[in-house]
């Protein structure tokens, strides 16, 4: 979908737009501007130009709002005031940039969405986005197709961020803590901070430290330089729990300079992923790589071959043609083995040194592993210049270095991988934090400024940051939430959400992304750059000025173009680095890891696909999203292979105690076939005690979600720790909110599942498919599908349909959150999810293929199939679900009385029922009642106004985003042109990083969807039921190496 018009709010200045608020301010400015006495005056004070009077006039209220006495329930009172002032939004803020219109500007149509380019930076990973805004209210995030970092796609975090914007638990005021919590104001803060900085400047910055989260923002980086210039003795440290120094160090080891690797996996015929997940949302460039890799997974084109060697099933692992489950600590040996083999055959120049000594790790002798590795070597050598090896960021620096060496030896540099100069980025990890703590302990830090992050919660357990923070005299925290860290700081100041502030970021390929605000800060927050600029006393501290100055965009036209596009400049130029000899990167015996077997448990701590490092813990959409592998929502679990678990006496879904170096946590066990034997994977980011009313708030008795596994996260061991122990607990967690059965179910169920899966999730190998294209259709045999009746609908006009390519789906869940955001599906909470009552219209089904020891994951999105012969329509007694002339299976919410018969008769069970008044429970408002609760009002701002908000007792389901269809149709009709293929994008399709969804008109024979349905690998789910689904799946076609191919698919019967 193209944006109707991209507007640049920077052009919307108060000069052009008169509002009632402006009029009210007029006397003030008049009074301020005239130094001479006015000719007409209202009072003697005015005549005297009394400063007190000037201030009085300048103030909006008699008592400034921020000084109004707030009761002990300050936040609530504040929210009431907030709620009242929403209607007058714009009046409350002194900033003059974003104001409501009093006259409709040309080209602005109320109720028509406008897309603004913006960018989101999550732990230094930046993505260019579009914010869809209705009448000045952003309601949906889409990818910016002009940005290489997105290509139009988004991930779960981006989709969820819109809910975060309207989170009423976000920090709403400046707070001072001197013994007790005192609400304060920006004015007080500015005064106090100004004094502190003035003193610090005088002392050359001694005693001042800044601790920030990772950021790719060039403006923040330049402000850091200015900060350190102004205060040379100050320190600036960054800490991000996910930070891995080894990737950066690895490149330095390999090439002797600091570079950044940018991949082009679309050119790789052979892709070897070693404990890496290129597609993961926390990988920089993950969205671009997803699209690139998926583009090579079309069996009618030239298909790539993917090998994955990894401990836990990653997104790329579920896509891989060959996957070997191996301990993360044994990857080094694999790399050494590959180097030994490849160097021997690729014959590097003598200067580079001979190969690694071939490691003697025992597991390499394992027939299965060795066979795959040998094939990998063969395949890589056969595809020099069109292969790519990637390695996970948590692997040691030497391993990274050797991988760069291998890519260089294979001639991949400049083809599938290029190196660019690393820009000035703010990043840091546990070591940096430890250094800061040492400084504090030594009494050398008096003033600490914490920008974002949440180090009190997510610091490694062996870095006593919380204790150290208590020793700092003045600690200032800029945060979106008044969280664990803010509670230990002397000042907390609210941070502006990324949708509320000007900003910039740098994408993985080096392009600059410009972010414009889409709404004035709801709670008066400031961005990090504004805060730092203010502290430095820079003359111009507005976000826009700062960002514009950084990029030297003095030309208005250039700047407006950049703001409009969201991107500035082009990708960084590739450099040609010179590989250093092997000596610099030889893997030591220690680095090669041990030959630990299944009995020595290895623990891998990972960022969570839903809540990241904990920063999204208060986001209901993301909390409710189930983990791609365990299918557990609202919490984390201990992922462990069934064979390892049984050896330890663990039971699926039961609790266990996980201990590492004397520290232990309790977690539910989730049997995860495909996990390497003897390994444990656990997600970080849960167990927040001061997250909010969604993620846990101990003070207010809000249940803490999940288990805090930072208790096991040490700076020493990092993300991979060996020597964990697990002991079973003979009880279940109170609630386990899994959206799919646990792996370990009764034998009958397991047998039934395994029997039907080949028919439901069809797959075969490329060679089989090419030899017998009909193989997919023949997975199920059934009598001819006849109908007793004629079609009630002719489908003369449009005939909407969808194709879902199982070759491309990675199970990332972006579509699930996009659907929730687009279609106002409510969050139901942990207890309701445990009853299967989650309201997501779209789910991703996860299945395992293989046996208990070697298994791969398969992901399959399921949404309403929009059957032509819909079983739901026939059984509704009140006719609340009907067939449209375009083949949509429409749901008439206000006709539905909630018999739920349609759900029972739906073989796909894609209908979701409002068992409770979820919108009332969760948002505090319902379509029936409305609300006066300011919290609820704020949250309900996230609703998409194009979609009905459903109340209790009605059935709902996927509509193929009918509102999007209608909007495009209206537009096309007004322009007297047909709807173009691809013009309508459903929310899932638009978000999908790999392009697995294709939506379009089946009557248009040239449409992508019609072509997809025409492919021999297209099949209907449960076609034997003769529902004639409008969604067809494209079977998963794998491309195994001939030497490793197993018989799978077409039998001789055909």
């Amino acid at each position, binding site marked *: 979908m193209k944006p109707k018009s991209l507007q640049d709010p920077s052009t919307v200045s108060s000069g052009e737009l008169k509002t009632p608020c402006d009029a009210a301010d007029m006397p003030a400015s008049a009074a301020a501007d005239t130094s001479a006495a006015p000719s007409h005056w209202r009072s003697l004070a005015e005549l005297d130009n009394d400063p007190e009077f000037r201030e009085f006039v300048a103030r909006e209220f008699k008592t400034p709002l921020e000084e109004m006495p707030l009761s002990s329930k300050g936040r609530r009172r504040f929210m009431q005031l907030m709620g009242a002032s929403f209607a007058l939004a714009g009046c409350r803020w002194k900033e003059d940039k974003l104001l409501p219109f009093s006259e409709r500007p040309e080209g602005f149509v109320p109720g028509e969405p406008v897309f603004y380019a913006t960018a989101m930076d999550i732990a230094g990973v930046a993505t260019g986005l579009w914010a869809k805004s209705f009448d000045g209210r952003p309601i949906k995030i889409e990818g910016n197709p002009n940005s290489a970092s997105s290509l139009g796609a988004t991930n779960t975090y981006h989709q969820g961020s819109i809910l975060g914007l309207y989170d009423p638990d976000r920090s709403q005021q400046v707070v001072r803590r001197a013994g007790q919590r005192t609400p304060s104001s920006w004015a007080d803060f500015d005064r106090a901070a100004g004094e502190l900085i003035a003193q610090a400047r005088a002392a050359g910055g001694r005693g001042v430290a800044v601790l920030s989260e990772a950021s790719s923002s060039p403006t923040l980086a330049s402000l850091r330089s200015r900060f350190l210039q102004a205060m040379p003795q100050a320190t600036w440290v960054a800490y991000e729990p996910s930070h891995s120094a080894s990737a950066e160090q690895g490149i330095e080891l390999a090439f002797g300079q600091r570079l950044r690797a940018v991949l082009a996996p679309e050119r790789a015929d052979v892709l070897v992923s070693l404990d890496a997940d290129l597609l993961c949302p926390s990988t920089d460039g993950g969205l671009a790589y997803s699209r690139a890799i998926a583009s090579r997974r079309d069996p009618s084109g030239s298909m790539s071959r993917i090998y994955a060697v990894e401990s836990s099933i990653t997104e790329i692992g579920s896509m891989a043609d060959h996957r070997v489950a191996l301990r993360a600590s044994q990857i080094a040996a694999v790399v050494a083995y590959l180097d030994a083999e490849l160097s021997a055959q690729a014959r590097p120049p003598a200067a580079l040194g001979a190969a690694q000594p071939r490691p003697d790790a025992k597991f390499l002798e394992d027939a299965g592993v060795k066979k795959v590795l040998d094939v990998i070597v063969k395949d890589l050598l056969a595809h020099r210049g069109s292969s790519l090896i990637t390695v996970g960021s948590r692997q040691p620096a030497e391993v990274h270095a050797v991988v760069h060496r291998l890519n260089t030896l294979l001639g991949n540099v400049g083809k599938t991988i290029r190196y660019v100069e690393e820009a000035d980025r703010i990043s840091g990890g546990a070591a940096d934090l430890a250094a800061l703590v040492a400084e504090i302990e030594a009494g050398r830090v008096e003033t600490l400024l914490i920008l974002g992050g949440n180090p009190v919660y997510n610091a490694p357990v062996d870095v006593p940051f919380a204790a150290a923070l208590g020793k700092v005299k003045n600690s200032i925290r800029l945060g979106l939430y008044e969280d664990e860290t803010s509670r230990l700081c002397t000042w907390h100041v609210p941070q502006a959400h990324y949708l509320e502030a000007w900003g910039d970021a740098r994408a993985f390929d080096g392009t600059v992304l410009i972010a414009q605000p889409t709404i004035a800060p709801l709670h008066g927050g400031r961005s990090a750059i504004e805060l730092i600029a203010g502290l430095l006393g820079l003359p111009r501290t507005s976000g826009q000025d700062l960002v514009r100055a950084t990029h030297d965009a003095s030309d208005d036209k250039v700047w407006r173009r950049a703001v409009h596009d969201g991107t500035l400049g082009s990708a960084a130029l590739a450099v040609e680095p010179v590989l250093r000899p092997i000596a610099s990167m030889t893997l030591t015996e220690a680095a090669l890891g041990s030959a630990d077997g299944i009995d020595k448990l290895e623990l891998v701590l990972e960022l969570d696909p839903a809540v990241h490092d904990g920063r999204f813990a208060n986001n209901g959409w993301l909390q409710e999203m189930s983990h791609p592998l365990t299918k557990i929502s609202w919490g984390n679990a201990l992922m462990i292979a069934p064979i390892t678990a049984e050896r330890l006496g663990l039971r699926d879904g039961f609790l266990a105690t996980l201990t590492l170096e004397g520290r232990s946590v309790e977690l539910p066990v989730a049997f995860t076939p495909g996990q390497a034997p003897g390994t444990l994977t656990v997600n970080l980011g849960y167990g927040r005690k001061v997250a909010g009313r969604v993620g846990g708030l101990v003070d207010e008795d809000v249940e803490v979600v999940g288990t805090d596994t930072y208790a096991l996260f040490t700076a020493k061991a990092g993300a991979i720790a060996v020597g964990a122990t697990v002991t079973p607990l003979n009880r279940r967690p109170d609630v386990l909110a899994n959206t*799919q*059965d646990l792996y370990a*179910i*009764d034998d*009958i*169920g397991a047998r*039934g*599942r395994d*029997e*039907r*899966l080949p*028919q*439901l999730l069809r797959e075969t190998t490329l060679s089989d498919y090419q030899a017998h294209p009909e193989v997919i259709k023949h997975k199920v045999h059934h009598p001819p599908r006849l109908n007793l009746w004629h079609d009630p609908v002719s489908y003369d006009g449009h005939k909407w349909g969808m194709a879902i390519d199982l070759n491309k789906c990675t199970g990332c869940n972006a579509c699930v959150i996009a659907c929730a955001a687009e279609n106002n599906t409510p969050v139901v909470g942990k207890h*309701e999810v445990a*009853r*299967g*009552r*989650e309201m997501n219209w779209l*789910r991703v*089904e*996860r*299945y395992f293929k293989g046996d208990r020891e070697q298994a791969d994951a398969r992901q*399959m999105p*399921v949404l309403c199939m929009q059957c032509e012969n819909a*079983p739901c329509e*026939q*059984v*509704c*007694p*009140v*006719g609340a679900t009907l067939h449209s002339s375009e083949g949509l299976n429409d749901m008439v919410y206000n*006709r*539905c*009385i*909630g*018999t*739920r*018969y349609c*759900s*029972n*008769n739906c*073989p*796909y*069970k894609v209908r*979701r*029922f*409002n*068992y*409770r*008044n979820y919108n009332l429970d969760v948002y505090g408002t319902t379509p029936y009642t409305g609300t006066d609760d300011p919290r609820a009002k704020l949250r309900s701002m996230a609703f998409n106004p194009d979609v009905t908000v459903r109340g*209790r*007792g*009605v*059935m709902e389901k996927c509509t193929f985003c009918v509102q999007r269809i209608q909007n495009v149709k209206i537009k096309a009709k007004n322009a007297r042109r047909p709807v173009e293929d691809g013009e309508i994008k459903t929310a899932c399709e638009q978000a999908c990083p790999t392009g697995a969804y294709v939506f379009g008109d089946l009557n248009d024979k040239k449409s992508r969807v019609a072509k997809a349905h025409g492919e021999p690998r297209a099949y209907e*789910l*449960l076609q034997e*039921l003769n*529902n004639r689904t409008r969604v067809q799946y494209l079977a998963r076609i794998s491309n195994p190496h001939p030497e490793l191919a197993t018989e799978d698919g077409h039998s001789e019967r055909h």
Partner: protein
Amino acid sequence: MAIASDINPYQGALKGDNAFAQITDNVSRIMEAPKPPRAWYIAMGFSLMLLAMFGASLGFVVWEGIGAWGHIHPVAWGFPIVNFVFWVGIGHAGTLISAILFLLRQNWRTAINRFAEAMTIFAVICAAIFPGVHIGRPWLPYWMTPIPNQMGMWPQFRSPLEWDIFAVGTYATVSILFWYMGMIPDFATFRDRSKTTVRRLVYGLLAMGWRGSSRQWHRYERAYLLLAALATPLVLSVHSVVSFDFATSQLPGWHTTIFPPYFVAGAIFGGFAMVVVLAVPSRQFFGLKRIITMRHLELMSKIILATGMLVGYAYGMEMFIAWYSGAIYEQFAFVNRAFGNYGWAYWTMIFCNVLAPQVFWSKKMRTNVWVIFFVGVLVNVGMWFERFVIICTSLARDFLPANWGYFVPSVVDYATLAGSFGLFFTLFLLFCRYIPMVAMAEMKAFIPEGHAHDH
């Protein structure tokens, strides 16, 4: 029973010097006694307690939303529909006894037909409550009825739920008519024997001016015969239609052509079991042993045995057809039903419905009131489980394994189930006390004295 006879006003000698008078006395004194036996009060207290619980739990459901019930995502129909089908099934025996046995000239039915019919009506009342409150918006069930309205909304007649509305509605109407019409001569007897004005007035109104003239008797018997003929197809239709809710769907375990006869057999089976469960204590406490004799109980036991075997055959045939169909989903549904995670429910059902009635092969057993009562209770439990097994276990594991779930009832589920028994027993106890429990007039026509012409 010595103590019972002391406090039970219904155990004494019957007044009257001939069989006709004694029948009248035997039935009428239940209403005429100043106080019913203590057992009645205890039972009534207990029933009212359950009824209050029913009201409270349904009120909670309407207030809170039907999420108060334990439904999970794949199992969108849980206890309410199980209870609905269960209660509709219970109703069957009443119509069968009153209509079919009447047409077949099974004169022994006169001893039990009245309260079997009463049971039918009360069971249908219990049943009718559930579909109304199980829907998501319980204030709108009337949208299922074809009421002309300005919005032009009309029901969707392809839906089996719509058929249910008519099937159950017709059934309830005809049953009430049939029941009430049969009672008119007996109400007249009550009226004539009443000693207080209120009673005379109420029973007088209910008797609709019955004077017992031969013309009235002639009209009455014609009408009774016609209503019996009208009610007969309903015995077959109502549960067949209820079974269409399941049989016409696509769900493995529901989509079965055997359902209509299987449901009807099951309903009669369960209905008769409920009749014996009610008859055994009633004849004891209300002194009706000479009217509801052991022969009646024995005959009903035989019917329970026969219909139980039919139901057992249906269970076996379902399994066979599932295997024979070759459809993997169908096969799985039945294997899973018996051996999967709901196996306990299936085997409870088999034990109660197939094995328990087998004791009735023995004459000794089917003439022992305790055994009859106990088997009757078991069969009711079994029939409830049958509906649970069909509805819940089929839904819990359907086509796509990702949807599978395990239904666990909530407190409200149990409260409404128990509460519906409260409603049923409350109505039944009121019936026993205030309405002629046995069809006196009909009874008299078939006692030997009724055929004596020689005095």
